[in-house]
């Protein structure tokens, strides 16, 4: 995928974020714009890094680390980045993710229906075990390290 193509796709996503932020939270277009551009900028740099760097990390890992670096206390632009992105309600970027994700599993409906109740229950148990197991360990370690 070329960079230009990626920029176009990110701009579409950005428009989706601004739309969701306006429809859902009544934040005006211009007010959402700087924060959205920052998020898109991070996503774009993450994309470039994931192509250029020799070690393979998931692209979202780069997004997360870049976001952290930009907003951490030693970053000169931290206060601007935090202020601008705080205008974007955190669920606003998610609607377009849901829309694409929904379309992307549209051809699995029949396979899902064929799974039967056993696999559905098993799936629920797998998710429960993963989440609760993790919450349990987090709780214990946070307590032991006096973080809470």
């Amino acid at each position, binding site marked *: 995928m070329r960079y230009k193509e990626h920029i176009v796709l990110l701009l579409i996503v950005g428009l989706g974020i601004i739309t969701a932020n306006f429809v859902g939270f009544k934040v005006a277009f211009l007010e959402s714009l700087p924060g959205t551009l920052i998020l898109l900028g991070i996503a774009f740099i993450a994309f470039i890094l994931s192509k250029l760097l020799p070690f393979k990390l998931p692209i979202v890992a780069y997004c997360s680390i870049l976001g952290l670096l930009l907003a951490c206390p030693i970053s000169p632009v931290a206060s601007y980045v*935090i202020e601008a992105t705080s205008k974007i309600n955190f669920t606003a970027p998610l609607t377009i993710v849901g829309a*694409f994700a929904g379309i992307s599993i549209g051809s699995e409906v029949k396979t899902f229906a064929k799974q039967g109740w056993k696999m559905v229950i*098993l799936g629920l148990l797998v998710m429960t075990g993963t989440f609760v197991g993790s919450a349990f360990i987090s709780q214990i370690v946070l307590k032991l390290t006096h973080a809470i």
Partner: protein
Amino acid sequence: MENYTYCSTKERFKAEYKIYIAAFIMIIIADSIGQIKLPIGPGQLLLFPIFYALLLGIIQGPHVLKIFNEKEVKAASKLVIIAICPFVAKLGISAGSNLSEVISAGPALLLQEIGNLGTIFLALPFAILLGLKREAVGATHSINRETNLALISNLYGPDSDEMRGSLSIYIVGGMIGTIYFGFLATICAATELFHPYALGMASGVGAGIMMASATSSLVEIYPAQADQILALAGMSETISGITGIYVGLFIAIPLCNKLYNFLEPKIGNLWGKSQKTQLKSEDM
């Protein structure tokens, strides 16, 4: 990963413009509905625009309304990863602005990865009781998102029993995982056994959209700690994304195999033999 599906940006736009337009219509509908709260048992089901969009997307697919064909379905799955990047960036910013909380939670953030193995202890015995054989290992070794599927496929082959189990859970997770994760988070919050930070960290399991759903609910329940929850969930998700494949390869799958070999002879026959063949014959 470099694959030029399209010759030019224009061609891609032409092939996918229907998806973009549909996405905008879905955003307008979903965000107009906004958030809905339904009390269920001790928890509550919090419905967010992401769910309506997901559902609207599914029904437009080739099996229901047939607005989108298989090709567009495939194209959309590549768009998901692009669309989730700004959201993860936003969580990264939360982490940066709450750096001291993130650092003090550092040990917990690293170790909670091990908690993800909880699925093996909870789900594997049940799978064996149901009469599943080697599918059980694929199905229960992890939450079975894309990376886990790739790993199972590499280890056991794309036509293996293990892969069939893995794929089944992948599909179930894709269809109901997002909404279930939100519900799970509210139930766990209602038990009051866990600190909101612990629940935030638990949300990051290596599936971005499930994490998004769980944190949306948690933020609604604990508005005062919203920023810290987002920060920890984002970091936990990032760590899962990086270490998940190694935890799977070196811990989860060997552990799952050990437990399977131990449990299967003991409880594999309890349910009755007739159940076993049934699941195997299901085609994927």
